[in-house]
């Protein structure tokens, strides 16, 4: 039986504001417990919420970036439930009239094709505090620093068809959020959290299968693993004649499995109603246009520009526009060295390789854009060959010296003096009469041997183009 996977994602993004959604408490990460939990956050009687304008602006900004309908009039609601990390006994959220309505996100699949994923809505809501269950003599410790921090919950349509698409969607969302500067997107610190609704059905079926919701997925890698695990589990159950129970499951990264969160005594019944302490939020066209004017160039637009302006392949343009930092770094390198394709190769291959190896972000790159640009400039003006450049690049890592100082001090300048290259070629030809005979007998593959020998003698410094030409000329006699 052929199965199709259906996935919808709910992504909570912690908005990067200084103060909370409805109070003037600080939102700094990692503060001492409860030092950022004021009277409103603690739900002291008589305290009232006042809506943070930066939150509204960030939500609208996100809405415009995904081409969404912007709610001209959004309404806050109370979602009622009791839990000690939720002092008010309700979470303020938006149910019927969210700030961001229907939009869409274009993702790039592994084969390079594009797919548009619908976004149902994105609503503003409060985060809860944290419960710590260890070490308190059988009691639970509550830290309310995070309580009341502003979240944007972004809900996708069930249009993702496998775990890789889900990861591509999440990465695109992550990139857009960072481009917009509305969140630091740090998944390890919980600034971006993902719940996945997963179901399977026979390929071609029109009805959805029963879904489960997987919570607690906090890295791109885990999203893929958790979904794949859950899909296998569901298919196994159905093929064994069982049926899927609609439930919430928790992903355990250590064991690479999902397990059922014991279903609540009483099924969720949040008894939503409009939040009487807040009036409807009304946004006019002028506000929306002002926010639109603040929008930066977004990943897709940047990728298209990189293709047309710099002549890059779709693939390279995609990699280079995947984050704003990467794109800025690349453009700075190009500005310095003037070679768009060499710059693309160096940034996506050599630099990215180095960053991956040392698990660094581009913002932490040990080689600055100006130094990399200077290095590529020296390849371009033929001071050094591309191969020698790799050695200089290595040398740059442990050194404060400029590119030119490294080339100078290690005597790495390319030999472009045709007299010197000719001498070298003559030497190599004289030393290998057997191979010369082979070449002249039509075995052209031997040419590579000569290039290798000549490079070895010149310690890699001979200009490859000149060497090629001279060698060919001399060998053909």
């Amino acid at each position: 039986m052929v199965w199709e996977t259906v996935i919808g994602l709910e992504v909570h993004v912690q908005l990067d504001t200084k103060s909370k959604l409805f109070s003037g408490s600080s939102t700094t990460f990692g503060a001492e417990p409860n030092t950022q939990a004021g009277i409103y956050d603690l739900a002291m009687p008589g305290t009232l919420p006042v809506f943070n304008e930066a939150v509204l602006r960030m939500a609208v900004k996100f809405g415009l970036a995904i081409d969404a309908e912007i709610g001209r009039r959004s309404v806050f609601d109370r979602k009622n439930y009791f839990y000690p990390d939720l002092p008010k006994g309700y979470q303020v959220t938006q149910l019927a009239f969210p700030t961001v309505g229907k939009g869409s996100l274009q993702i790039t699949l592994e084969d390079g094709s594009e797919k548009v994923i619908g976004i149902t809505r994105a609503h503003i809501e409060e985060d809860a505090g944290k419960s710590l269950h260890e070490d308190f003599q059988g009691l639970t410790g509550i830290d309310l620093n995070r309580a009341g921090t502003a979240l944007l919950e972004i809900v996708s349509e069930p249009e993702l068809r496998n775990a890789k698409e889900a990861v591509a969607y999440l990465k695109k969302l992550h990139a857009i959020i960072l481009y917009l500067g509305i969140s630091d997107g740090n998944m390890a610190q919980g600034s971006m959290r993902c719940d996945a609704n997963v179901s399977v059905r026979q390929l071609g079926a029109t009805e959805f299968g029963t879904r489960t919701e997987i919570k607690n997925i906090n890295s791109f890698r885990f999203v893929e693993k958790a979904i794949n695990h859950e899909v296998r589990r569901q298919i196994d159950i159905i093929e064994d004649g069982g049926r899927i129970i609609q439930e919430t499951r928790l992903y355990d990264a250590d064991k690479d499995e999902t397990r059922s969160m014991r279903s609540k005594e009483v099924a969720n019944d949040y008894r939503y109603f409009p939040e009487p302490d807040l009036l409807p939020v009304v946004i006019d066209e002028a506000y929306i246009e002002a926010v639109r004017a603040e929008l930066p160039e977004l990943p897709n637009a940047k990728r298209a520009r990189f293709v047309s302006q710099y002549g890059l392949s779709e693939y390279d343009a995609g990699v280079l526009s995947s984050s704003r930092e990467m794109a800025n770094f690349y453009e700075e390198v190009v500005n310095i060295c003037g070679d768009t394709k060499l710059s693309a190769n160096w940034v996506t291959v050599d630099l990215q390789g180095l960053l991956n190896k040392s698990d660094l972000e581009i913002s932490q790159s040990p080689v600055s854009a100006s130094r990399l640009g200077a290095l590529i400039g020296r390849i371009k003006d033929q001071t050094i060959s591309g191969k020698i450049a790799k050695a200089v690049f290595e040398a740059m890592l442990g050194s404060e010296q400029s590119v030119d100082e490294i080339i100078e001090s290690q005597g790495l300048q390319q030999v472009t003096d045709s007299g010197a290259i000719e001498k070298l070629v003559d030497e190599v030809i004289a030393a290998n009469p057997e191979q010369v005979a082979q070449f002249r007998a039509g075995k052209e593959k031997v040419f590579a041997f000569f290039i290798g020998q000549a490079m070895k003698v010149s310690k890699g410094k001979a200009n490859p183009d000149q060497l090629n030409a001279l060698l060919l000329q001399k060998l053909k006699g």
Partner: protein
Amino acid sequence: MALEKSDVEKIAHLARLHIDATEAQEVASRISSILDLIDQMQSVETSNVAPLAHPFDAVQRLRPDVVTEKNEREYLQKIAPAVQDGLYLVPKVIE
């Protein structure tokens, strides 16, 4: 619309209210009479009326994104029944 005693017990549980068995029956009939009034209101033609989110005809004021609260943990935790290492302690809630 008539509310059963069991409905009242469920609502009371969700709201964490204690209502004993003898009260529950009376509360059920009182809430039922409120629901009857709502049933009556439901019959009014409202298709041309926009849903009301708030009785005030006003819009939400916004606040600039500025930190205005100070750290008052010590003062606020004086009234808490139990604290440790800056945390509020509550009965264990993990399932």
